[in-house]
């Protein structure tokens, strides 16, 4: 995400991405610390059996995350000078990288363009809103509104197509699941009619 896009071609996952890895390492390490604190707070079981208590595995996992996070941070600092030269690596260029046994030719390197933060925020925000109104408005209304908003954010000009899709999808899926497959979905506003 933070990798400098060289020419639009070689953006995705070029060999070392020190800043992103530094952040990822910090996130993993802090998750490890939070989980470790929580693991140490796991209460003693009422009846202690021989061997393995409830805290052993959580403690081991959180320590593992902490260690891996620190290793990621260290690794990102080690590869930093490569990026400082400002030469963007070409796609599939694996210099300075561990040779990959499974994928020596870098078939998986091409993971597409980086996602803009704004788009991410809009999509995440709409999805959270959908969750919050899912029960209150009911599946058909909430889903139609959510689909309409999301698809129109992506493609404003096609609002009519989007609206038709949103309503048809919401109603068809609702009828299919509640009537044919007898899965209970919140009716919400529709139910109050």
């Amino acid at each position, binding site marked *: *995400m933070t990798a400098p896009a060289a020419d639009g071609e070689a953006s995705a996952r070029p060999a070392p*991405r020190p800043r992103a890895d530094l952040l*990822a390492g910090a996130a*993993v390490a802090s998750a490890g610390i939070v989980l470790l604190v*929580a*693991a140490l707070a796991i*209460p003693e*079981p*009422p*009846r202690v059996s*021989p*061997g*393995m208590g*409830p805290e052993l*595995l*959580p403690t081991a*996992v*959180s320590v*593992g*995350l902490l260690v*891996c996070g620190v*290793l*990621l941070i260290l690794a990102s600092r080690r590869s930093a000078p490569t990026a400082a030269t400002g030469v963007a690596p070409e796609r599939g260029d694996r210099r300075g990288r*561990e*040779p*990959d*046994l*499974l*994928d020596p030719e870098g*078939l998986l390197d091409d993971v*597409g*363009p980086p*996602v803009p933060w704004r*788009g*991410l925020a*809009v999509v*995440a925000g709409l999805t*959270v809103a*959908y*969750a*919050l109104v899912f*029960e209150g408005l009911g*599946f058909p209304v909430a*889903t139609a509104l*959510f*689909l309409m908003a*999301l*698809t129109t954010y*992506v*493609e404003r000009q*096609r609002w009519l197509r*989007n609206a038709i*899709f949103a309503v048809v*999808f919401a109603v068809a*899926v609702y009828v299919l699941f509640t009537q044919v*497959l007898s*899965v*209970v*979905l*919140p009716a919400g506003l529709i139910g109050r009619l």
Partner: protein
Amino acid sequence: MDALSGLLDGLAAALTPTNLLFVFAGVLIGTVVGVLPGLGPITAIALLIPLSFGLEPTAGLILLSGVYYGAMYGGSITSILIRTPGEIASAVTALEGHAMARRGQAGPALATAAIGSFIGGTLAVLGLVFLSPLLVQVATAFGAAEYAMLLFGALLLTGTLMTGSRLKATVAVLVGMALGIVGLDPQDTVPRWTFGSLELSDGINVALLAMALFAVPEAIRHLALRERRTADRMRVQRAWMSREDLRRSVPPYARGTVIGFLAGLMPGLGPTLGAFASYAVEKKVARPERRQMFGRGAIEGVAGPETANNAGVGGAMVPMLALAIPGSATTALLLFVFQMYGLQPGPQLFERSPDIVWAIIASMFIGNAMLLVLNLPLVKVFVQLLRVPPPLLYAGVLAFVFLGAWALTFSLFSLLLLLAVGLIGYAMQENGFPLTPALIAAVLVPLLELNTRRALIISDGRWDVFLTRPLSVTLLILILLAAAAPAVLRALARSRARHADVTPD
């Protein structure tokens, strides 16, 4: 032979009209979901789990297994025509297959993928028929200590056998373990990592985890990029190949079947490992003039990996059914489905419910044949699915996973949990952390803890039980060797690469 009579009984059970209908529905739905760009077998199964609640175990499992290989096949269509694989295993197919399509040879590429899938899939099920009972017999000698050791080995290999950064794969395993631990401790009934939330004490449902890690990140990515147009699609007249294409494809079919099946047996990557290995082998054995075609659309590079990919399905089912140790994320999800129906795979399953096991295995033969019959003539119909506009597709996927998550617990909480785990998955995917090991680890960790505890209770808390039992210590040595092998191979590759840098050819 025991396996043969079991298989015949299974065939009889699978051939009833109802079960035939479920096989058909499974492979059809699987193919449809698999064709949709960015969606693979894991998403397909996770989305259908809420639906299968109401079904009989046999019918539900037949349906979901059908979805599994249907989606594998559907994924090859997407890889070849628009180069958007739904899962890592198809990425290899995308390379040569898409190059063939660009040269106007989409038809032969699709045909060889379909036939290869059928051959690999069917022969691997045969392997499954004969290998599972053997493994079951071996497994009866296993105690809790050996199971714990095997599960530990599976977790370790899941981390080491991934492509890309080993450190990041290890983090993924640990994240998956953490997600699998959340909830009430099953033995001591104390809450672990629930942070005071009552809803979290039930643990995180594996189906929810699969949707959150595989469907949500993909949908968020495409929507946030505001993708409007479908990828350029290659024209397909019909899926058929010339005699020459067939001649070139046959040896890769054979090699792909063996490689894929064996790789599928390994815990961790299953089919993916097979597809990559098959590609490497095909490139290596090709004559020099054919080798130049690799990267520009060599049919061998489609035939081999696609066969291996599908043979890996059968391979990965062996340890899942016989030992309850899944070899891939998809079989991990299937293991969860078995448990959901109150069935625990492993030797007991073959003993107590042989009818269910053999009906599922037999249905895999039928399903593979159906796929071939369905797909050679109907490929043009499935290709139409590639025209679904991305905004509608991914918004629809999000609405669908919300529905699925709701149907699991009927609470707002599971929707918020889906989103939270989905965002974690998204952050991991964008930063090069593989998600497959996380799902496998989440399924394996409760089993690991259970068996370790059993072994320790029997040994009265002495940890040396793992080292004093001959079988357990043998497994430990094998696991350590397998885990060290990639590191050794990597070191060799590195020294070779350094050598090549000095003397350019």
